């Protein structure tokens, strides 16, 4: 049962009177507001004791809650609560959660890892993150590389070999691709002949006469291309000399060249100016052995095999 009429109450004054009759209203704050305010004061006191709060001397009052973490040097440290310590402690937890997987990676052979569905799932997710952090700046997010700069890791053409062992070797040691600039030793028509020969080997349109001349030059001591690219022009993986007979191009941007003529020109330019930019850094020391192993299997899955 309720009585719905609006309640009215008389206004209080502070009780003082100045100049005879000058009084001051006293309109107290609503009770709920006052108690909420007290509650926030109590909350603040509790908060100060738990978390870092006041500057004190040269430091500050750290509060009761501590964060313990292991830093990158492996030293266990306990620090009063702060977000950086909390982040490091969280990282410790994440590393601990990954540890069983990395331990497994360590103990299994490449083929065993690739055959185990659960480990394969781990490689796909952990490898993707590692690849994105370390490899993607050059090789791009999906490993597709950039023609003229960075090799495509998703095709089946491997400069230094695409077996697990060779990929691992590439990652650990790094690579340095080099080809001399032949404009310094050969005449322009000789380079043109060589370019036509390479185009003929790769199945591109070419001038047959020039290609024949290029063939002779390729296998001669004058140009000596066969030293590195092999007598059959299929390259030598031991030294990272590319196969010139396939459809995959790294340095000469043949796929993007419009028209038969410009494709040959693209090849000619590479022969003339050579290259000294095929540098892959060594990752041993930058990444842990297990991380390199994860990346090895991941890159192998991108397009490895040979």
């Amino acid at each position, binding site marked *: 049962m*309720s009585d719905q009429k*609006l309640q009215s109450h*008389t206004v209080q004054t502070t009780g003082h009177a100045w100049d005879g009759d000058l009084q001051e209203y006293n309109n107290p704050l609503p009770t709920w507001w006052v108690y909420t305010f007290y509650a926030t004061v109590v909350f603040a006191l509790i908060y100060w004791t738990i978390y870092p709060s006041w500057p004190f001397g040269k430091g500050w009052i750290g509060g009761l809650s501590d964060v313990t973490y292991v830093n990158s040097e492996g030293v266990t440290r306990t620090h009063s609560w702060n977000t950086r310590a909390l982040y490091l402690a969280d990282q410790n937890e994440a590393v601990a959660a990954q540890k069983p997987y990395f331990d497994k990676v360590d103990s299994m052979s490449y083929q065993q890892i690739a055959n185990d569905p659960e480990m394969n799932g781990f490689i796909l997710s952990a490898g993707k993150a590692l690849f994105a952090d370390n490899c993607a700046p050059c090789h791009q997010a999906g490993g*597709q590389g950039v023609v003229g700069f960075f090799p495509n890791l998703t095709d089946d053409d491997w400069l230094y070999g695409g077996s697990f062992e060779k990929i691992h070797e590439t990652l650990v040691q790094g690579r340095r691709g080099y080809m001399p600039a032949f404009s310094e030793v050969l005449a322009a028509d000789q380079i043109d002949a060589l370019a036509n020969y390479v185009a003929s080997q790769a199945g591109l349109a070419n001038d047959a006469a020039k290609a024949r001349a290029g063939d002779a030059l390729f296998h001669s001591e004058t140009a000596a291309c066969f030293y590195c690219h092999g007598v059959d022009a299929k390259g030598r993986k031991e030294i990272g000399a590319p196969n010139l007979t396939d459809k995959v191009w790294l340095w000469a941007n043949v796929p993007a060249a419009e028209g038969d003529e410009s494709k040959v020109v693209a090849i000619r330019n590479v022969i003339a100016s050579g290259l000294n930019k095929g540098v892959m850094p060594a990752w041993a020391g930058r990444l842990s052995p297990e991380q390199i192993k994860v990346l090895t299997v991941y890159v192998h899955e991108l397009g490895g095999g040979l």
Partner: protein
Amino acid sequence: MQQGLEDQVALYQKRIPIFTRSVKGSFRRFKTSVLVLAYAIYFLLPWMPWSRADAPSQALLFDLPGRRFLIFGLTVYPQDVIWLALLLFIAAILLFFVTGLVGRAFCGYFCFQTLWTDFFIWIEYRIQGERPARVRLYRQAWDREKVLKLGATHAAWLLVSFWTGMTFVAYFAYAPELVWDFFTGQAAAAAYITVAVLTFSTYAAAGLMREQICTYVCPYGRFQSVMYEPETLAVHYDARRGEGTQGRAVVRAGRGIALERRKSARADAVATERRHQVLSQSERALADRRNQGIGDCVDCGLCVQVCPVGIDIRDGLQYKCISCGLCIDACNTIMDSFGFPRGLIRYDSEKNLASPQPVKAGLHWKRLKIIGYGVALVLMSGYLAYSVATRGSFDRAVTQIRQPLYVVLSDGDIRNRYQIRITNKAGEAQRYRITATGIPPHALDLGNFSEITIKPGHSGLVQASVRLTPEQTETLRGFELTITPLGRPEEARSEYVRFDRPGGTP
């Protein structure tokens, strides 16, 4: 402090305590049945066992760390979020549908605020007594009796609130283990926080705030008002009958017509005789009142005393009314005792009450709005049931790898790669086979996983690559990948995927 000099209207109204009188009747019985049923379900369900191979044997378990919801024989994964959306949609439409038909039935009979408040009022009643006793106790000074009784009431409320919170948490972990861990201090911090928050909010909402939640806090009560139509049934006071032309009036003393109709319904001769007497007496009294233009309302005020939100239903339909029907029970009791016809306060529609010749109240569902809601309700419930009944035992997601879209291989062949994710939603480990149709045999390379075994509740990733010659890609735009659970060929699911090639713009 000095007394004030002038009156000022307060900015907000102080709560006027409501002491509800208990009442008997069909609506009270219905409310009690709903309360008992709802409490039985809510409090006992977490303790219901259910045999499971790979999870705790609890019938209803929301396994948040495991990212799954175990609902009897059904395991729901986050991917099935569409079911939740459907369920919420159905719940909303059901609310609109029911409100359009019979008003705020949800508020009055099913809302947890109403249920818990009702239960808390019952506790109050058991400890402090009936309404007059509670009013007396309220006005009384803080003596021993008041402290004891109020203390006991609040303690009981807190206990119920605590167990309400505890039960809620029990849906999220194996209940027996959780309760043990909780009291031995080993449960997760989230459990303690949730229980504390729920204990406090239940105690505050059902014990202290009560009708203020419905009046000031709850949005549903307010927006249900716009779903009322003139045909909607709601708790109404029949003002025309109750007020007459001269208004309501108490029954004058000495009339002596206070015998209950139900009691007099005994079949023996004496009772029949007396009933006739009583009936004729009350009929005479009624005729007497009507001749004087006095309405049937005897102004006993019982309908106001039983109201849990503290309103007077005789002021007409109002936003505070949660339509719990208790005033109907109260009024019928009084009408019976005077031998007047029942239904002075009843479920009726505004339209019927306003019509010159009111007929017996009934459900008027032949309205566009009601039929529309009904159709939506049936369609969505049907779709949900269909979706749950025909869901496969696994989920699959096939995505083409887009970086790069295609690769030209050394011999000029073109390769596209795809990532296949299979999630096993069945209760046991399952082996799946992946096949392709629409491309030449041997074009599909699944690495080492043409078949993959996946543990229940887990996902497996398979990288597939498809290698085609440039000639083959001339006409091919895509193909189908089929995932077949071994031993269950009828559950095979196919997915059409694109095949990209250089220069090819499909």
